[in-house]
């Protein structure tokens, strides 16, 4: 059959337009990478000048222009710990319920929509809510426990979603195998499904720790203190926290210019936490992926 003349010589044109388009996309993609590395590099270089053993282990001094950030590190640690104690069990159980127990499609869909909605709620709204419920209504005052609960509720959607996905990836044949041996549903989940899903669940938990340690708005009115001379003594005390500390010393310190160094240092510590958390999550993911392959 004779080739149709109309399909003439457009080949160069469409190839050129592909080259141009792909060139632009590649360029933009690398630009995004450059932006990220610029942000990271800038803070690592500036913060690196300040970071020292003393910076990490001493309290702020001279109106936050000298000394260290030890109380803020400790405070963030408490908050991460407190919120994890609340959100991990609830989040994992909720994920188990969604994937293993809920059978009514409408209920599952409803819960999923609610969980998505919750993850869309701005962090400052969590702050308002935490203040109204935990600080005022329950009378806990500005305290570690109020902050922990607020942060825990905020991190629930992420934990639930990753747990659900981890469970979903386990093939049903494992469940059936266990059930066929006379194990109850709960035993099957506890001894077969959860251990297999564990690595992916852990990855989600670690990422949630990263999120919690960097959040500012939810702790503004529930726990964070501008400056505390001593470390908190109980869960009903206020505490300092890294993200809030960075906020105050970079915007409203006694001498903003003089405390710039401290701010760079604090930002670096925050970024270091995120870096470590991400690396850890990725390392775990690939480690377990390898292990599964070997089995």
């Amino acid at each position, binding site marked *: 059959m004779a080739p149709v003349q*109309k*399909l*003439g010589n*457009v*080949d160069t*044109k*469409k190839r050129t337009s592909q080259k141009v388009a792909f060139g632009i996309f590649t360029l933009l993609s690398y630009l995004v990478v450059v932006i990220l590395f610029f942000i990271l590099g800038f803070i690592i270089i500036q913060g690196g000048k300040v970071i020292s053993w003393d910076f990490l282990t001493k309290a702020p001094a001279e109106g936050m222009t000298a000394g260290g950030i030890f109380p803020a590190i400790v405070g963030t640690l408490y908050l991460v710990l407190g919120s994890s104690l609340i959100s991990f069990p609830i989040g994992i159980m909720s994920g188990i319920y969604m994937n293993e127990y809920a059978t009514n499609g409408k209920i599952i869909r409803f819960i999923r929509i609610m969980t998505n909605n919750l993850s869309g709620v701005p962090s400052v709204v969590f702050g308002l809510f935490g203040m109204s419920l935990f600080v005022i209504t329950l009378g806990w005052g500005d305290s570690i426990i109020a902050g922990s609960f607020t942060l825990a509720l905020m991190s629930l959607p992420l934990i639930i979603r990753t747990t659900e996905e981890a469970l979903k990836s386990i093939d049903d044949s494992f469940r059936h195998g266990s059930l066929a041996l006379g194990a109850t549903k709960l035993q099957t989940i506890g001894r077969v499904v959860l251990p297999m899903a564990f690595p992916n669940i852990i990855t989600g938990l670690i990422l949630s720790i990263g999120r919690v340690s960097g959040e500012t708005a939810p702790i503004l009115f529930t726990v964070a203190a501008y400056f505390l001379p001593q470390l908190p003594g109980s869960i009903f005390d206020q505490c300092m926290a890294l993200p809030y500390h960075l906020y105050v010393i970079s915007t409203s310190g006694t001498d903003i210019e003089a405390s710039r160094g401290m701010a760079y240092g604090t930002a670096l510590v925050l970024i270091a936490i995120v870096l470590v958390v991400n690396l850890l999550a990725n390392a775990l993911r690939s480690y377990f992926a390898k292990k599964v392959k070997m089995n």
Partner: protein
Amino acid sequence: MIKIDAQNVDFYYGDFHALKNISMQIEANTSVAFIGPSGCGKSTFLRLFNRMNDLIPDTHMDGKIGIDGRDIYGKGEKVDQLRKNVGMVFQKPNPFPKTIFENVAYGLRVNGVKDNGYIEETVVKTLKQVVLWDEVKDKLKESAFALSGGQQQRLCIARALAISPSILLMDEPTSALDPISTSKIEELIHELKNEYTIVIVTHNMQQAARVSDKTGYFYLGELIEFDNTRKIFTNPEKESTQNYITGRFG
């Protein structure tokens, strides 16, 4: 006249040796069927003719494939030009999320045809060619997804024919269809083989017997036998072919 000329073709998915030293010559305006058990390499071989396997990462080919005397894997060969000349119909009907009309017009548009009159003319002509025109002429502006599976597959054939290829590759084109749609497509293949070189991969031996002039039998990556269809189905040379067509395995 030799249309497709494959010489000593080897193909690998990663470390897996999927095609082993295959040579085959296909004449113009004939129809050829590839048969063989699943995983024997017949689809892989078919997809080499329009370089569709280029899309799969970690693959590698040795040997030569010529179409109309040109080495299609040669340096500087443009793959889109090749594919314009070698149409393909897939296992499952895969129309685009566009209207019936735009599905057929797609190939013309991506190849730079701007003349709307010509596009319309071609769409009508090819829809008639695949005997779909009467069924869709009133709903050309509707989504192609509204058609039945068999209609979708004929639409996909029309889509492939619209850019006037000289070769038509068909990768198990009826495996997802009901018997009535299947027989319609088979009739269509009968019509088309006068104008096109058709290569069809099929699981269905009766189909191979019905639509093809020549048949190639593949097994474990090797081309066991390639001969006139009548000969393959009545008096094959090799025992393996005999076993397969009489249904002893596969």
